[in-house]
């Protein structure tokens, strides 16, 4: 189970990277990165998963006393939350940049924005 999730996550990352490496369109690149981000989120969650356990919320079913044996690792969950938000922030930022770049040159082709080089 975990391995499948991990593999999925890694595959998503690789797909995202492949998309980012082969698509010249800025928006497609951004989407590709979003895919990669999802991939890493999957990986993080998968690492935290423990077979046969439940979410780390103490309620009627899981009391504070048996939390130790009943809940999965909460830390990756925390991390993934932060990672998602950061991913969103960066994605939004990239969109804005893409928009401004399009405004400037009327194209979304990344190879057209190579004035700075060497």
């Amino acid at each position, binding site marked *: 189970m975990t391995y499948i999730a991990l593999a999925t996550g890694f595959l998503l*990352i690789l797909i995202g*990277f492949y998309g980012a490496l082969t698509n010249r369109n800025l928006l497609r*690149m951004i989407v590709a990165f979003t895919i990669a981000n999802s991939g890493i989120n999957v990986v993080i969650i998968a*690492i935290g998963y423990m077979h046969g356990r439940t979410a780390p919320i103490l309620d009627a079913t899981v009391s504070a006393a048996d939390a130790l044996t009943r809940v999965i690792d909460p830390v990756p969950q925390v991390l993934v939350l932060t990672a998602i938000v*950061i991913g969103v922030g960066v994605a939004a*930022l990239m969109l804005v940049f893409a928009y401004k770049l399009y405004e400037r040159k009327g194209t979304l082709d990344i190879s057209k924005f190579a004035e*700075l080089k*060497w």
Partner: protein
Amino acid sequence: MVNAIYIIVAALGAAFLLGLLKSEKRGTAYVITLFALSVMTWISAGWVWAFVMERAAPVDFLTGGTSPPFSINFRMGLPEAVLTLLASLTGLLSALYMKDVLCALGQRAMAVLLVAVMALTGIILTRDLFNLFVFFELAIISTAGLMLLSEDARALAAGFKYLIVSQMLSVFFLIGIIFAYHATGTLNIDGMATASLGLKAGGAIAFFFLFIAVVAELKPFPANGWGLDIYESAHPGFAAIFSAATSSAVIYAVDKLLLIGGAEWLPMATGIGVITFLAANLFALPQTNDRRLLGYSSIAQTGLILAVLGQRDILGDNVLYIAGGLLLSHAIAKAGLNWISGLVAGRELPDWAALRSRPILVFAFVTFIAMLSGLPPFPGFYAKWEMVRILAGEGRIALIGLILLGLLIEAGYLFRWFGYIIKREVPAQSVRCSPFQISAIFVALASGWALGFVWGELSNQYFGHDNLLLAIPVVFALTFLLLDWLPAWVKNSIAIVGLSLFFYLTFSDYDPLRMIFAIIFLIGGAVILLASYDSKGRRIGFYPATMLMFAGLILLIRATDTFGFFAAWELLTIGSYFLILRGKHSEPHALSYIIFSLGGAFLILAGFALAAQGAPLFNIDALAQLTQPLAPWVFLLLAIGFMTKTAAIGLHIWLPGAHSEAETDVSPMVSGILLKAGLFGLIVLLMTMGKQQLYGVELTYVMLWIGALSALLGNLMAIFQEDAKRLLAYSSIGQMGYALFGLALMNHLGWLMALMFVINHYIYKSMLFLSAGGVAKRTGTRDMYRMGGLITLMPLSFIATLIGIIAVSGVPPLSGFGGRWIFYNAIISSEYRLPMVIIFLAGPIAFLYLFRLIHTIFLGQLKDEYRKIKEAPFWFILPQMIYVALLLAFAVAPGVALRRVDTYLNQIFPGGGLQWTGTEISSAYGYWNPVAIMIIIAVIFGTLFAWLLFVNRKAQKVKQFNIVYAAERPYRPETTHFAWNFFAPYRKALGFLVQPFATRFWDGVTNTLHTAADISRRLYNGNGQSYAFHLLSFVVIAYLMRMGA
């Protein structure tokens, strides 16, 4: 002390607060921003104070009510305090600097700036891995945001490229974090370190990802194209933050990570660092855009620091001192340079000539590039010294070589740039700057010097070296910076008095050998400075440079340990470089001078470091105790280093240009005095280490050959010069060859001869350079064939030249003969026959160029345009006449100077000295009597002259065209003066010997470097996608290398 979290709080609070303000209230917003940054600065400064002055212990600050590893904690120690101070101060100054932009863009921009600085302090302070990631992301996003501050439209694309790369890095970082967490069960950095991540399953790969993600932020080669774009297009105020603060913070993050990874990852850090350092510096060579150049330099510097961090296994606690020195130097210098770049309108390097309108900015620029190049008295210098010392002690020679090579290349382009500033045409658009901007630069400047002092003190405290900024000669030299507003003649008087006074106060300190050098450096310098009275106005920059050179010279002979020696060596190199650069067309020559000198200096550094074997304080005399197999290598390095300064053949190509293009009163200084520094180095070297053998080759024997070839080829090349000062410069190469030869003979008389050459060469070369300089000043040209017939107009210059050439050529009765006589006596007892032949060949050749010098300038036909010129200025003539008197005196009584040295040399080479009976001087082989020679020649000459006067009493004085001309008359003086290509037949016969092989070789080296750099930097094709490719390749390659290792 204040909780370090308040640094974060202040920034964030202010940033959020800014949103509450109406968008019109930009002034208030700006004040709040400044206030927040000031608070951050103040808190960090408080901590720095606490750690430095009160020796406080590092403190952990907790969050979330639990202790680590279960919650995030901040740690404040000395490095953190210094770095947060650096980050927040840079932020504050940049905010000041960017006042206009920030106010124009409004509070959002200010908030972004605040968050950026906050993120950097967070990176520095946090001890939690994921928290580090968060701050990293904050830094990345705010960096991208701050790119919008730039007026450059291309900045957007640069920001986007950066985001692409950072997206990939985030992925790697997160993979690393989560697997590291999985392996160790903690996110705390210290926790991970104790859990030894690397040993856990998957730990190594997890760490690999962590490491790569953070290191990639340092813009390692080749995954750094995006960084350059940012540097090039960002607003300079922000580029300063990016370069100074961001790099520092990330480096510290790497340092923290290395704590987790442990020693096995250190080689990788070093490898990446060194490759980046070299590649970035190499690529910077063909760079013409100033900001991109700065970017390359920043990347290089961070690479260097990364490499140093990678050496922490052997650097131990010193890593703080070394990496800190390098880091702070880099940060201050880069911040300053970026700020300055905002004041310059043009983006090409030569446009920086605009700075000339503001000397303070030029001074700031010099300070900054000196800091970057690791020159004294800045922290980088101390760091460089200690680093090389320790590395050499551990036998990491290859690393030293690579680092020094990189430093040399960096110094090359930085000083080339400085050359543009000083020498290129001032562009139409002048420097515009507000008081805020100036003050930011000024703070950087002041802190640069202050840090120089601090590092000097630390060096004193930990390693027992002297603080260079407390050395009296250096202080004296630096005082001239403050006195630069005075008229030149006042400063000149102060300088002369200073030199003389220093000699008067210290002359009892020197042994006879050093006495000779002390006299030449101090008194000789004072005499040459007499000529400087001729210049009018304020002569900005001349005196600090001159006195810095003299400070270096005098510290050189006073140095007892290798550190002092090397520091003095670098000081005199810089001082003289500035001096040489003052010449009208000296830009390329000054550059090749500084590159060769620094190259030589680095060899010396390596040699000393190798010799010390890690000992912090190494006495020069202890060189004598070195044994095989180390000793010959040390000898080799030092000898080549010193021979660079004496312009031994092959390493000589910097000399002709540097000496001939220098100002009139500078040429004698650099030729008559500065060259002796190299000889002094050689003397010290040979005195302590004596003869050394490498693979069965006697090294002094090789030096003998080099000396002989220098003498021959230097003289030969001098023959074919049309430029008077160039001719003299080449002649110096030959003369130094003689001296080198004498030293390499390694016997009593050889050394005596070398010292005689030291004295003689000082006197006559100074005199000839002054004379030629005076003529050049009056005629406005240095081409000898354009002159001619000046004897009647400039009789005193003629007399000086005449006496000079008689002395140089060694014709009795003048003092040059003494040198030759000792020389013959020295070689007669030596076993080396073949090099002797070469040096024989060199002897008569000296005549050729000397005659040419005097003939084509003073004799022959006077040209139309020079019919009305006057004798050289009084202040040029005065020292020349002093030299004439000195030469005559020294010719009659060489014993005054030599006798004590002769006795002293008995300590080094017992026996084989001279006998001094009355006025006669004799050796085991021959004898001479200078007084008798002088009297006899004077009597014969006088008698004959009187006789001719009597016979010829009615001679009709005729004019220049009254010559027999095959029954015709001369057409014009230009066609009648036989001067150009004077020794054409000689060129036909022996011209093949003076093919510029060395020049071609070094040209080839630089061209290869340039071409290689120019081709390979096309890697950075500007396409963000390519940069992603680079990054992934970097990851894969690094992984493969890691696995391979």
